[in-house]
């Protein structure tokens, strides 16, 4: 029983954090908002060089052969940096899905994806919208065009421009497209194998988003503490007023108790334990709650400046709000958690937190 990340895992996190701190200042994010594609191929290639895209791909397929426990801190770091690139989804879904399909498809696409030469977007069975479909050399599609058939995995190469219907998000970093016109493509896998692949992929996607919420919440808290320490009213820093301090302390508490839930979900997925789906939904809900609280108290502690376009705080607020509804949103995860907890045959209580602790 060890709840600590290894030195290697921490080092990987640090190297990504330092890279993003240097390469992705908020001016760069705003610059991308104003660019036509909203993405930077150079940044994408550099991220690939760090190995971040390869974490969950087996070594035999040219990846690092690691697992969710090795990725969760990286996802958190992406949230902290508000990285616009679809790194987390690519590393947690696109790359491992391609590796799992194997064969020619993997040979053709995986090396290019891991090298950062292309992007491969994903339309999961849960999606109404598809992120980053425009910059993608290919899109992995659940089902044909219906979007709800999880028994098929298709690969649509070079989505045609007339199938790309842009839908603007509140978060200018997000590039969203309608799911429905994206159809066709080659059937690359089907049946129960695909259902299992999707089940795992959805859990990974939700885990990655939950971890990004933690990172975003931590960033909002940092901004808020810095602002409240500097801004003076009534002759003193507003961060000395308990009304402000208590709100920020509550965010700190919520974050402290969301983090281990998210890390545990990573461990459950990595080890494939029976409660993995429940643990991911718990992580989703806990991280979402902490992030929503950070956003609310964060903007409040900034006052009117927090409500402006100019202040960088908005980058994280909007990411938090948008992310909160992804991967099935709260309803889907609450329902899944309820099924697990309110079941007469589930063992709950002391000694049952870890699956085999009976």
């Amino acid at each position, binding site marked *: *029983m*060890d*709840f*600590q*990340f*290894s030195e290697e*895992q921490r080092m990987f996190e640090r190297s990504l954090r330092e890279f993003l701190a240097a390469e992705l200042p908020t001016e760069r994010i705003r610059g991308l908002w104003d660019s036509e594609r909203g993405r930077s191929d150079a940044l994408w290639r550099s991220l690939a060089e760090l190995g971040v895209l390869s974490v969950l791909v087996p070594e035999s397929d040219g990846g690092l052969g690691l697992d969710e*426990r090795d990725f969760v801190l990286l996802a958190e770091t992406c949230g902290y940096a508000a990285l616009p690139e679809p790194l987390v989804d690519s590393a947690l879904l696109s790359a491992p899905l391609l590796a799992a399909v194997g064969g020619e498809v993997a040979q053709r696409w995986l090396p290019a994806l891991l090298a950062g030469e292309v992007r491969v977007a994903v339309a999961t069975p849960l999606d109404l919208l598809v992120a980053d479909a425009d910059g993608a050399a290919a899109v992995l599609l659940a089902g044909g065009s219906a979007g709800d058939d999880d028994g098929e995995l298709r690969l649509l190469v070079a989505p045609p421009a007339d199938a790309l219907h842009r839908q603007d998000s509140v978060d200018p970093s997000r590039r969203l497209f309608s799911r429905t016109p994206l159809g066709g493509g080659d059937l690359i896998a089907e049946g129960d194998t695909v259902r299992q692949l999707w089940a795992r992929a959805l859990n990974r996607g939700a885990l990655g988003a939950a971890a990004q919420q933690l990172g975003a919440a931590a960033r909002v*808290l940092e901004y808020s*503490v810095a602002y*409240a*320490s500097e801004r003076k009213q009534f002759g*003193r*820093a507003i*961060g*000395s*007023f*308990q009304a*402000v*301090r*208590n709100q*920020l*302390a*509550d965010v*700190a*508490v919520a974050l*402290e*108790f*969301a*983090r*281990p*839930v998210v*890390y*545990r979900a*990573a*461990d*459950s997925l990595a*080890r494939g334990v029976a409660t993995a789906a429940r643990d991911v939904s*718990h992580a989703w*809900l*806990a991280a979402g709650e902490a992030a929503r609280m950070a956003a609310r108290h964060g903007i409040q502690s900034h006052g009117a400046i927090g409500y402006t376009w100019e202040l960088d705080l908005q980058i994280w607020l909007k990411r938090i709000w948008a992310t909160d509804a992804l991967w099935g949103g709260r309803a889907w995860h*609450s329902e899944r*958690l*309820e099924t697990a*907890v*309110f079941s*007469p045959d589930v063992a*709950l*209580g*002391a*000694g*049952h*937190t*870890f*699956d*085999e*602790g009976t």
Partner: protein
Amino acid sequence: MNLSYSDCQHTFRAEARDWLASAVPATPLPSFDTKEGFAAHREWERCLHEGRWGTVTWPESYGGRGADLIEWLIFEEEYYRAGAPGRVNQNGIFLLGPTLMEHGTQAQRQRFLPPMAAGDTIWAQGWSEPNAGSDMAAIRCTAERHGDRYIINGQKTWSTRATFADWLFGLFRTEAGSERHRGLSFLLVPLDTPGITVRPVRQLNGLPGFAEVFFDDAECSADNLLGEEGGGWSVAMATAGFERGLMLRSPARYQEAARRLVSLYLAQRPAVDRDPSVRGAVLAAWMRAEAYTLATYATASRLLSGGHIGSESSTNKIFWSELDLELHSTAMSILGERAELQSTAVDCEAGGAWLEGFLFAQAGPIYAGTNEIQRNIIADRMLGLPRS
């Protein structure tokens, strides 16, 4: 990171479970805030000690098992799962014990720890005074040094377990004219000392879980000074760190309460679901109990690899106390008009345990440093905000 138990840990759990299955009294003991209940709980402490399960984290030389914090968590899980009695000597074993091991002399450890482990000395806390509650540095109770003795005068209040306990530990002002955190000393005082008067104070449930303790020229040996004279504040902070941080409220307590809450809800589901908010509250309480468990395992892992308890002592205290309120308030709303029934009432649920727990949960955000104080500590030390 690997969240599975080792074979050793499984064996430890099985051993604890077997022993508890044969040792835990079949019927619940009366409250330890009654005279007979206090005596019955003291007997239980002796029984735990004889089985070497009373102080699992202590070194073997003091009657423990040298268990690490993960094993402690496992033991606590088995303890709550077995429905074993509350720990009447919690003040001693979980708070003073670790403080003695850190700050006590060898002679003090040998003198105080074995009888504490054996249940022969049950400890009360003596922090608060009528004018020193949250502002503990306002302590005015004096202990004046006369050779090898201190002469204590003043009053302590809200002293938990002092009604029936044998000894009291707390802070006293040993330097005349000193102010705030300076000049305070951590003393261990037998409650049967001449000059000490203990006046029970009844708590919300009607039982004397508190007492006021009056000192009127009460003498205390200088051998009972823990740490340096005048250095009591830092010793007390160490105790407070243990209290809030980890050992006061092991997660097992909330895991079991959450389990009971889920089954209470499921048993009455169709009726309860008429208020749709209850379902969400039950789920939220279960999630938080689980989160507290996970966070505690994470802290234990960190401490095991050489870390020290830090801001967890404040974040934990806020979290478990608010969780306890949430668990019990939700149970009360499920119980409806039966919620108010005492254990003596025919229609009460689960022997009145939910009501008892609900009343006790009201105290959680107040004792061991109010949650307002904890939020201040978090704002100051964890976030580094300007002082208020």
